[in-house]
């Protein structure tokens, strides 16, 4: 590397201004800026070029470094977010430390926001001049390399988590799959059929579930949650809390004798898997294909666990002696390098839209309840029997419940039109009833989706374009007595209609999980305004977060269907694999560090760090910054009362010289231009 100290103090600066086609040159007089900068102290070379980021552009820099023995480079072009890396690499290839490079943004900050060419040119000159002054004081830095632990943590065992875990495990990496519920499978396990192919959800999901169970590279911990997390990309220390099932997991074979023998002869408690449509006992297996195939005890309803006294007929019935009421929470500590969050969504709760009658009228159902109703292993064996015991002859499906609505959720939940079509088909198939879909727009963007809509049209399902305001039971004539009435404007035909129905299905939207904020704080990522996890870039980085090493996949990032969820899960696995197979990660060296001799041990900086990078060394009574966690935000640097925190690339004298560079022309001309 060229050593700047060899050039007797005055650096040799190369300045390059980019036309960027007409993006910059259309507003800024680039020739004038290049000429002007060429007159400044220390500037040896000053050029303008059409596209600096192109190969010839970069070669220009490299050639000049070699031939003109340059030791500082300034490029005035677009945003550093785009090409800082490009130019740093070019600099490095020519043998110069890449941090002797400084970039000036005269596109997003000048030519794209100003229309007056004279003023814009002057501003470009000022910014370039400031950068030239600053770059004098740059120091050579080296990015830090941090190794990546090849183990991966996948949080959430729905289809997203399952697919990501299998992909990584098949690549030979060890995966910890942590799932909060007693079984993996997520919401998909509850569906009857999936659109648009009408595949049986369980049939396509359960092979993947058992692959997870039997995979040698996957440690499956169900009924568990991540309770604590610390560390940084490549080096996470995770604590997993395993909730007690009161069953020895490796002994239980899921024979369910204990369930039959339970002191509660009848099932009495709402069955979560069947969304409360059926009942279960305190000891239960969530559903027949639950993975792992192990029962669990509900501590709220089991008499032994709640009150401490029961005949414990279950223990008598178990011939493998699996039941253990003395079990407690168990904490496991693991180390992983990357984390994939696949925590899924929460279905919209229609008690927030009471005008649709959910809870008031027994024959109003949510879509998820209907999935269980039509499912062969559901509470009614797949027969559509309503809560009042009747069979419906007219069914209404209301789209957009809790979606596209300022009063509930503003967004479109993306999957409801398709699942409403699917439920229309299944309900018609199971009951022969007249089915009415009340919609605002029919959103069928995926592969085979529009064709599915056509299939439904051909089946004679009624499509009424009109958003339902209310489901009521007041009848206008004898035919409407005892029915649920929907009064709606059929906007396409152009008339107001009253449709009497026996059953109403609410197509509930998708929301972030209730504890999304807690989870995101635990994993140190952000949520968007709607509450879903925030991706790094909506188009170009949909599975990355702003925290290196933590990825998101599936509905936790936004409402999405199964094909897109699986694609995202694969993408997240690939991102994790990219890190793992690279073996290490290079961190930007714009980190802060403590000047130990000056640190007074006041601890002001410690709580300020948003990335928890600062700790206090009790033995030395000094603060310490973990370089790998530091993101270079500068908060601690500014806050330190004794000025003993310094930030690479943003040292005080570098910043002051930049300011001097901005203001120097004004001082000379007496401030005339302001």
């Amino acid at each position: 590397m060229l050593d700047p100290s060899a050039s007797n103090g005055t650096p040799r600066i190369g300045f390059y201004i980019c036309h960027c086609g007409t993006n910059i040159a259309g507003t800024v007089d680039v020739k004038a800026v290049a000429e002007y900068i060429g007159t400044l102290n220390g500037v040896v070379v000053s050029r303008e070029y059409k596209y600096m980021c192109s190969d010839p552009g970069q070669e220009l820099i490299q050639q000049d470094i070699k031939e003109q023995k340059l030791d500082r480079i300034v490029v005035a072009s677009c945003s550093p977010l785009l090409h800082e890396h490009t130019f740093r690499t070019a600099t490095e290839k020519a043998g110069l430390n890449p941090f002797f490079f400084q970039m000036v943004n005269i596109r997003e900050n000048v030519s794209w926001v100003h229309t007056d060419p004279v003023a814009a040119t002057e501003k470009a000159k000022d910014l370039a001049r400031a950068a030239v002054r600053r770059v004098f004081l740059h120091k050579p830095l080296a990015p830090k390399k941090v190794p990546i632990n090849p183990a991966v943590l996948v949080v959430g065992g729905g289809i997203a988590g399952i697919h990501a875990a299998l992909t990584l495990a098949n690549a030979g990496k060890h995966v910890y799959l942590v799932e909060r519920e007693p079984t993996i499978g997520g919401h998909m396990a509850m569906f009857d059929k999936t659109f648009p192919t009408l595949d049986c959800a369980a049939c396509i999901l359960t092979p993947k579930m058992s692959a997870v169970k039997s995979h040698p590279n996957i440690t499956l911990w169900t009924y568990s949650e991540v309770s604590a997390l610390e560390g940084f990309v490549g080096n996470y220390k995770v604590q997993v809390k395993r909730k007690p099932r009161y069953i020895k997991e490796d002994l239980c074979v899921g024979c369910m004798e204990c369930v039959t023998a339970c002191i509660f002869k009848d099932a009495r408690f709402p069955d979560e898997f069947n969304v409360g449509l059926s009942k279960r006992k305190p000891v239960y297996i969530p559903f027949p294909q639950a993975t792992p195939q192990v029962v669990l005890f509900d501590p709220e309803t089991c008499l032994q666990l709640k009150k401490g006294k029961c005949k414990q007929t279950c223990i008598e019935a178990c011939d493998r002696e699996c039941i253990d009421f003395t079990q407690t929470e168990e904490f496991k500590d693991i180390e992983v390098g990357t984390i994939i969050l696949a925590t899924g969504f929460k279905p919209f709760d229609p008690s927030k839209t009471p005008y649709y009658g959910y809870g008031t009228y027994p024959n109003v159902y949510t879509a998820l309840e209907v999935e269980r109703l039509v499912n062969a292993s559901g509470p009614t064996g797949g027969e559509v029997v309503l809560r009042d015991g009747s069979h419906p002859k007219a069914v209404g499906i209301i789209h957009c419940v809790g979606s596209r609505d300022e009063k509930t959720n503003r967004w479109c939940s993306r999957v409801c039109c398709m699942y409403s079509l699917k439920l229309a088909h299944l309900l018609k198939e199971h009951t022969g009833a007249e089915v009415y879909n009340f919609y605002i727009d029919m959103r069928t963007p995926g592969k085979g989706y529009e064709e599915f809509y056509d299939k439904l049209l051909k089946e004679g399902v009624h499509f009424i374009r009109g958003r339902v305001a209310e489901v009521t039971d007041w009848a206008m004539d004898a035919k409407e007595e005892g029915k649920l009435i929907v009064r709606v404007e059929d906007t396409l035909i152009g008339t107001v209609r009253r449709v009497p129905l026996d059953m109403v299905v609410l197509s509930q939207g998708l929301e972030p999980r209730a504890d999304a904020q807690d989870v995101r704080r635990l994993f140190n990522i952000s949520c968007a305004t709607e509450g879903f996890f925030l991706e790094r870039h909506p188009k170009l980085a949909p599975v990355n977060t702003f925290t290196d090493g933590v990825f998101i996949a599936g509905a936790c990032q936004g409402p999405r269907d199964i094909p897109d969820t699986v694609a995202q899960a694969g993408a997240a696995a690939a991102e994790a694999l990219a890190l793992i197979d690279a073996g290490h990660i290079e961190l930007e060296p714009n980190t802060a560090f403590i000047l130990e001799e000056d640190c007074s041990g006041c601890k002001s900086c410690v709580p300020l760090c948003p990335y928890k990078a600062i700790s206090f060394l009790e033995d030395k009574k000094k603060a310490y910054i973990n370089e790998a966690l530091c993101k270079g935000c500068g908060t601690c640097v500014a806050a330190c009362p004794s000025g003993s925190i310094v930030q690479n690339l943003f040292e005080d004298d570098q910043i002051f010289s930049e300011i001097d560079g901005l203001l120097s022309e004004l001082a000379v001309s007496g401030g005339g231009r302001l």
Partner: protein
Amino acid sequence: MPTSAQEHREVSRKITYQSELDPGFGEHIAKMAYGEKLFSCIQCGTCSGTCPVSHYMDFTPRRIIAMVREGFRTDVLNSLTIWLCASCYSCTVECPREIKITDVMYALKQEAIATGVYPKRFPVPVLAREFFSGVERNGRNSEGPLMVKFFLKTNPLSMLKNASMAFRLWTKGRLSLFEEKMRTPGVVSTLLRAAKQAGGNGK
């Protein structure tokens, strides 16, 4: 809707040319009604579905919003819809875009009266204007005299139909035959004039 195939039916022609429309109408009404959200309407039809009188309207509330946006000034101001609106605010409360539809209806009523484009003999605007001038004069509304003036201007014969109800009301002390006045009725017209003059001609 015509039912008999033997009824004489004439072919009608309905097409709208851009030159017939008023492109600024939407913005104008939106400003009057503090209703910029008007433009967010997704034409879902919730308003029409919940409006208790939408099935009597020539254009449902949803259609009115669409027509306002697109500049169908004449059709909208001549419609019966805006006068049938009873200001029950159901549409406003149910609208998923939170458009203040009732305020839009009021703005349309005001615009109709201000530009003189409305069905002149339709009872609702007649009542509104009678009420308006009565209160401007006396500061209070007198139901009896108001109804008399109203029937005289719209359908004098219906006064007979309502005579027995009026009589019953009067015997029960619920009908004011004379005009109610404030102690200081002039105060109201001073107030209104000053408010109207402030800031020019309103929005």
